């Protein structure tokens, strides 16, 4: 039996918690419980996954696998029993979750409110599903029963029922903790909204405390709180500095809501740690960050559909990760942890091997004990894992197809027209999310196949069109990109993102005048669009306009001084103009802000290569590649530097990697893929010829 570093493990999920907000609280002495936890633990930014949608992300946390493998691809899905749609269910998950693996390993786990955990699975321990508050009493209504199958074992229903806080029975003190003068704002629609979210938050917390208090010895408790995300979508707009669209009155009343919410989470953390006891090992994490500064999107005045499409823009790349307690090395330097690493690491802490089919890794650098050797897969080990029976684990889209057949045969009533349209939307969005997963994992071919089908049905849906173009550009197919964008621009002739992509497609096709024409119609970004300015800077640089490129990067830097992409952009311009030392300085500045910025490592390597500091250049390129495998230009530089140093075997290895990656492309496509910024690898190598 391998050593088990942690006797008991608490995994606490705070949806969308962000280090920026936490550090702001620390600066004024807030969040003392988290501060104390950090003093005895390790911390890091936690990389998220694409698309940044909570059901996908939290299921990846619980399985160690990407969404294309675990199968939860949307918030909602068809209802296999014949209704229109339902919340994405545990029966749709195609792989074992951490609680199944622990159950199979003879351990006792309690799960509270995890995404896609309904119906509750029959594990050793308990599951309080994410629908345990469904149908919860509206204000003035009598309390409803806990929904069927929301709690396992059924004997726990009586324990969980008192945890549910009806909205109108939320203690006033909870509301006052966020909005001290809430009584004076009785008619403000934000107050009942906040009350609703806080009642849910309080209910989950109480269910979590109930799980921790289980008199039978347990091994793992997993509690998920979504309030930072759900409240943030409504109230982060009021957080200082005041956004342009926010009125003075709202700003005055609600500017401290998010700060106070973080403090509330800290108090809950303190209560959970006290209930768990001193020997608890803790993993505290969030699935992504949440913009609180100049990159906050403006959703005011948008239609509900536009707003829904915009909500994901609040989410930032990095969430939080804290590891503390027995089995964890304090102040360890964590190496680019991601959501996919949580289940492998939790398994190692509890003395279990990870599956080799998981996409993450054990964060061994933070653990006091080596991890057990991985096994091929937990899914192929047949034992009671507390899974639902196979007949319940239907693919909901397959089930919906079967139901459509029964409707066509005349044995079932067809859904009303509106519901059919809704189902089709769910089907399309699920496919889109799958395409996003493929894109983010470097699989442009399956992504492009899905997106081509979606664009054929919805040629003017921006997300479908732009993601298709992104993938086709990665496949070096500028022609179809230009065609898709022309259809789109015929309807939205001044859409800035479409014009940017058109310029990129023309650049890929080698048509510089057309690229410059597309860029000339693009206006200087307004508002808080730093990321758009960065993209424009890149395109202008490729189009041979370094002066304009510099303007764009400077604009992005002014919008968000903490954005490493803007500073790295300035480095690219400096390299183009031969200012290699200045470029290296910019890259170091960018890496000081975010050491995991692959492009900054790469550009530092470029600058160092031109400065003939080849040892350091190699290190920088290797860092870039570790952060983002498959970077073509980075691989080219590595090959050419090793060649220059007559390290032929190393050069050949990188060459082989490149050849493997490019083997599916013809010569024209290879030329497109290998096209680089000025002063790129080819130019660097030419100086030695």
């Amino acid at each position, binding site marked *: 039996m391998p050593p088990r570093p942690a006797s008991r493990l608490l995994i606490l999920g705070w949806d969308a918690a962000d280090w920026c907000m936490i550090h702001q609280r620390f600066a004024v002495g807030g969040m003392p419980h988290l501060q104390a936890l950090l003093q005895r633990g390790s911390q890091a930014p936690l990389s998220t996954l694409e698309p940044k949608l909570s059901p996908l992300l939290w299921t990846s946390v619980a399985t160690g696998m990407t969404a294309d493998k675990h199968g939860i691809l949307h918030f909602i899905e068809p209802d*296999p029993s014949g*209704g229109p749609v339902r919340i994405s269910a545990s029966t749709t998950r195609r792989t074992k979750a951490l609680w199944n693996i622990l159950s199979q390993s003879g351990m006792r786990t309690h799960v509270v409110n995890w995404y896609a955990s309904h119906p509750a699975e029959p594990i050793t321990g308990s599951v309080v599903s994410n629908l345990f508050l469904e149908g919860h009493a509206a204000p003035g209504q009598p309390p409803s029963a806990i929904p069927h199958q929301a709690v396992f074992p059924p004997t726990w229903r009586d324990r969980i029922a008192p945890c549910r806080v009806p909205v109108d029975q939320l203690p006033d003190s909870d509301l006052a903790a966020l909005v001290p003068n809430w009584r004076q704002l009785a008619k403000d629609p934000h107050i009942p909204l906040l009350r609703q979210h806080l009642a849910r938050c309080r209910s989950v917390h109480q269910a979590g405390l109930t799980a921790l208090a289980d008199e039978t010895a347990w091994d793992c408790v997993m509690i998920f709180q979504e309030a930072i995300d759900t409240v943030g979508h409504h109230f982060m707009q009021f957080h200082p500095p005041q956004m342009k669209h926010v009125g003075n009155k709202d700003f005055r009343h609600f500017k401290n809501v998010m700060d106070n919410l973080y403090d509330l989470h800290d108090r809950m953390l303190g209560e959970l740690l006290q209930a768990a006891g001193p020997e608890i090992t803790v993993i505290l994490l969030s699935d992504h960050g949440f913009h609180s500064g100049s990159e906050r999107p403006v959703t005011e005045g948008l239609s509900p559909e536009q707003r829904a499409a915009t909500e994901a823009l609040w989410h930032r790349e990095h969430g939080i990760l804290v590891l503390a307690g027995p089995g964890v090395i304090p102040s360890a330097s964590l190496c680019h942890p991601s959501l996919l690493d949580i289940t492998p690491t939790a398994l190692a802490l509890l003395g279990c091997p990870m599956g080799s089919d998981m996409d993450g890794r054990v964060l061994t650098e933070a653990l006091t004990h080596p991890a057990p050797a991985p096994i091929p897969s937990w899914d192929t080990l047949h034992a009671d894992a507390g899974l639902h029976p196979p007949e*319940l684990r*239907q*693919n909901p889209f397959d089930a919906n*197809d079967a139901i459509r057949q029964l409707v*066509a*045969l005349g*044995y079932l*009533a067809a859904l009303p027209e509106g519901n059919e349209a809704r189902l089709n939307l769910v089907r399309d969005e699920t496919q889109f999310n799958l395409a996003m997963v493929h894109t983010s994992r470097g699989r442009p071919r399956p992504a492009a196949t899905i997106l081509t089908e979606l664009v054929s049905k919805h040629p003017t849906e921006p997300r479908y069109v732009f993601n298709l173009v992104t993938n086709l550009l990665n496949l070096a197919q500028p022609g179809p990109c230009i065609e898709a964008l022309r259809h789109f621009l015929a309807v939205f002739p001044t859409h800035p993102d479409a014009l940017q992509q058109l310029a990129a497609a023309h650049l890929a096709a080698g048509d510089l005048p057309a690229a410059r024409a597309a860029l000339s119609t693009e206006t200087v970004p307004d508002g808080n669009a730093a990321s758009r300015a960065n993209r424009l800077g890149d395109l202008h640089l490729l189009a041979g306009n370094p002066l304009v490129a510099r303007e764009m990067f400077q604009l992005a830097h002014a919008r968000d001084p903490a954005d490493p992409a803007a500073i790295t952009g300035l480095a690219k311009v400096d390299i183009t103009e031969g200012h290699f030392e200045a470029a290296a300085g910019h890259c170091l500045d960018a890496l000081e802000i975010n050491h995991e910025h692959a492009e900054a490592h790469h550009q530092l390597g470029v600058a160092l290569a031109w400065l003939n500091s080849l040892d350091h250049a190699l290190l920088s390129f290797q860092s870039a590649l570790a952060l983002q495998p498959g970077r073509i230009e980075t691989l080219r530089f590595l090959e050419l530097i090793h060649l220059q140093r007559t390290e032929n075997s190393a050069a050949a290895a990188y060459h082989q990697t490149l050849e493997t990656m490019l083997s599916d492309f013809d010569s024209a496509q290879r030329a497109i893929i290998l096209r680089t910024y000025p002063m790129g690898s080819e130019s660097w190598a030419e100086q030695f010829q």
Partner: protein
Amino acid sequence: MNPPLFTTIVTGLPRSGTSMVMQMLHAGGIPILTDHQRKPDEDNPRGYFELEKVKQLPTDPSVLDGSPGHAVKVIHLLIPHLPEDRPYRVLFLERDPAEVLRSQQIMLTRTGSSLSTLAPDRLTAIFTAQLTLTQAWLAARPAIQVLRVSHAQLLSDPATAAREIAHFLGAPLNLSAMTSAVDPTLYRNRSAV
């Protein structure tokens, strides 16, 4: 014959022989709940014996008001929507899923409806899972008696099947008429398509 106090439910996958059993019950003397909206056709030359409003069971359980003493056809997916405030006896038709699928496809093709894009094995898996869930729902309700009726036996030995159904329902049915209601040639002709 005194009408029984329960509702006789005939269920199973579409094209598993539910219409044939409804014909047998009708011939045997059990009153049938049907609105005759769905007319006989090439797929069911003797009629479907269906009640259109049964499709509304999930939202309107009152569609079965007045059903005791009658037989009514209810597709397997709607069984869990049966109102639980009244007694039932259930005749559950069983037929090889591959045969069921073939028969459904023939019917869809004939009516010009679009075929499912799902591969047959995936469709079969879904239908099998649906049947398992329906059977589990029934098994959890011991007050509901269930007789599994084999489609193959109906065709090969209709007299025995009729006897077993009559015994299950506890009703003095006209066994000879029930047996005659089964016309294996219909099945043989269609399955040869």
